[in-house]
């Protein structure tokens, strides 16, 4: 085992050719994960709320979309975005953006289920109490249900984010130079150290994800909802 290949290329693994070129490596992995995470948080929230709509005209199509996306492999969604997005927009779209789009759509569908479960987990009496004082439905949702539901959703959100970090490795397939892609580049260039390189990459993913799962477990304990009554 000779890990000098890692030491020699450490900056490249971490940030790619940045600042002299585009961001790559772990930096890009995190960038993809964080941006997709923020977008899919809102995407999931909106889809989740719509999937609980009183109106079937809204509920049915939204659930159809959610279930369709959940039934597709992520790789498929990324391919679709990669080929479809430029066609739809009528211009070239940077690969990293198509990947963010794919990850966002995919993760939003899963987040929407977390949001939905979080909302449905709040006792019906809370909404009844709120509307009994004259609050409108959306006000009850905004001031009473969501603040309580969010606390219950946080651990699941963190878990979803961990999945998202790992899923960014699929960006490799469309040539986005995130961590996995960078690893294959270095591997192809040096030829003789695949074991070392991929052990290192695995360790990086593991450390990253493990720290988040630990964080999630800690949060779960801290936020354990004390039941009223």
């Amino acid at each position: 085992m000779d890990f000098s290949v890692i030491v020699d290329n450490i900056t490249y693994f971490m940030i790619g050719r940045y600042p002299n070129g585009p961001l790559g490596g772990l930096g890009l992995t995190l960038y993809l994960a964080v941006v997709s995470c923020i977008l899919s948080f809102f995407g999931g929230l909106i889809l989740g709320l719509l999937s609980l709509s009183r109106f079937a005209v809204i509920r049915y199509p939204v659930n159809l979309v959610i279930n369709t996306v959940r039934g597709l492999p992520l790789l498929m969604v990324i391919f679709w975005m990669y080929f479809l997005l430029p066609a739809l927009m009528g211009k070239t779209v940077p690969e990293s953006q198509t990947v963010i789009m794919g990850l966002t759509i995919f993760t939003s569908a899963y987040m929407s289920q977390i949001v939905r479960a979080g909302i449905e987990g709040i006792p019906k009496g809370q909404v009844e109490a709120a509307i009994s004082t004259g609050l409108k439905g959306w006000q009850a949702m905004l001031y009473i249900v969501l603040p309580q539901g969010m606390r219950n959703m946080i651990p699941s959100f963190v878990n979803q984010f961990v999945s998202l970090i790992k899923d960014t490795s699929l960006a490799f397939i469309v040539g986005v130079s995130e961590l996995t892609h960078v690893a294959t580049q270095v591997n192809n260039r040096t030829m003789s150290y695949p074991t070392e390189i991929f052990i290192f990459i695995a360790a990086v993913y593991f450390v990253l994800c493990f720290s988040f799962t630990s964080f999630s477990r800690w949060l779960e304990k801290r936020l354990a909802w004390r039941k009223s009554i």
Partner: protein
Amino acid sequence: MIQFQGVHKWFKKLHVLNGIDLHVKPGEVVVVCGPSGSGKSTLIRTINQLEPINEGSLVVDGMDLCSKKTDINRLRAEVGFVFQQFNLYPHLSVLNNITLAPTKIRKTPKKEAEEQAMALLERVGLAVKRDAYPTQLSGGQQQRVAIARALAMKPRIMLFDEPTSALDPEMIGEVLAVMQDLAKTGMTMVVVTHEMGFAREVADRVVFMDHGVILEEAKPLEFFKNPQHDRAKQFLKQLLSPMH
């Protein structure tokens, strides 16, 4: 104030309200009692349309609940509702539980709303708990906060759905005392309860229900001394001596 006329309500095939006629006058305190499953909770929940009615007419405080023009949120703001399970908001402090609706709906300035909330907490004897959270309170205290929360909207009618049924026996008195005080202020009240002591002392009228029908309506003294209907007699007997 509240006028039921031929009100029917079904849950799927179950006929929960079967031709209800009831008129509650302003300032009147009406106690509704009856065995479980008699429709009394459903009856009280129709008054602020937590349960919509299927047939008949229901007019509350001059607003026709069956009319599409009626702004149901406005009606609910005028009608306070107290639940068996309190349903306080666990993520908000006692004070914020009370000020939420007035600040959001009546657009009362925060400071004024807090002053009013404090006055209400004073009235239910819980001013010291203003910053506590619901989970830190006993059941009786939670229910008193819930009453204060309902009163914060300055309702013209107060509805109580078994307000003491979820309480330990030693806490029932404190909640009933608050309700009794409220009755003295001339508030129109409809109370679903099994507390016959409360009915006797506070109610102007007792309504006995079974199987979705009002079987008996009488002044409390008459009702307790001389119930007309067999089922009312049986109900009272079971209530007063549950072992027999």
